[in-house]
């Protein structure tokens, strides 16, 4: 029996949306308030969805403690209470929530072996959220 398990994590970080490829005027026009030179912050809510057959010995798709350990070590410790613009992932890329969502998916996809990664959903505020499944359609 295939099931999908989703775990939610919270972290807070600051960022500034500013593209090196644009003039200052273009940046202000494109990113508005998010281009404020001093940056600003959000409480991010990260949802990680994994899928797989429910194993009869454990009743689980994925051991939650293993997932918590991985996310704690590889994501929360590195992103929580940080300035995203200073992180290696955003040397070239603008730390939009789209790019952050993709970066977090890539960390999980590369490093987490406990279950099949289905998708990552990231809420920047209660009013917006982003989902990424490695470029695939979100299903089912």
């Amino acid at each position: 029996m295939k099931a999908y398990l989703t775990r939610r994590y919270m972290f807070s970080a600051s960022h500034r949306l500013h593209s090196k490829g644009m003039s200052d005027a273009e940046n202000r026009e494109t990113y508005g308030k998010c281009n404020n030179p001093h940056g600003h912050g959000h409480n991010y809510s990260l949802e990680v969805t994994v899928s797989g057959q429910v194993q009869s010995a454990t009743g689980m798709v994925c051991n939650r403690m293993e997932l918590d350990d991985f996310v704690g070590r590889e994501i929360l410790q590195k992103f929580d209470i940080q300035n995203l613009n200073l992180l290696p992932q955003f040397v070239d890329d603008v730390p939009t929530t789209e790019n952050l969502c993709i970066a977090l998916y890539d960390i999980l996809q590369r490093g987490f072996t406990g279950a099949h990664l289905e998708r990552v959903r990231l809420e920047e505020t209660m009013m917006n959220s982003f989902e990424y499944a490695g470029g695939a359609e979100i299903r089912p």
Partner: protein
Amino acid sequence: MVYLTRKAEFSASHYYHNPDLTPEENQRIFGKSGNPNGHGHNYTLEVTVKGEVDSRSGFVVDLKKLKEILNREVLDALDHRFLNKEVPEFSRQIPTTENLAIAIWQRIQPKLQNAQLHRVRVYESPNLFVDFYGKA
């Protein structure tokens, strides 16, 4: 095709233990959740059905009937119960959120008429939920 979701809440206790594993393996896999005295959660259940909108009623499904099925098949059986001891499915299976979602699907799927069950989502807490879309 329209999708309709009905929400329900129940509270229950459980613990995780596999008698085929050693105590050390149980501890390693299940950690605190293996305490045999159990612990509890406030579960939120979301049942999504899908179907065409009936031209006479404007409904995908009669919500009153869906609610009755959820009350009878799920809440009466699970709410304020110790899942391991009082729910037959869990005399053999471990009452993880995964197995709970599957058990709820199997309880309500045969009772639904007209509408097709699309998804069962069970929140163990706001930070953990499982989706089940049927046998696959």
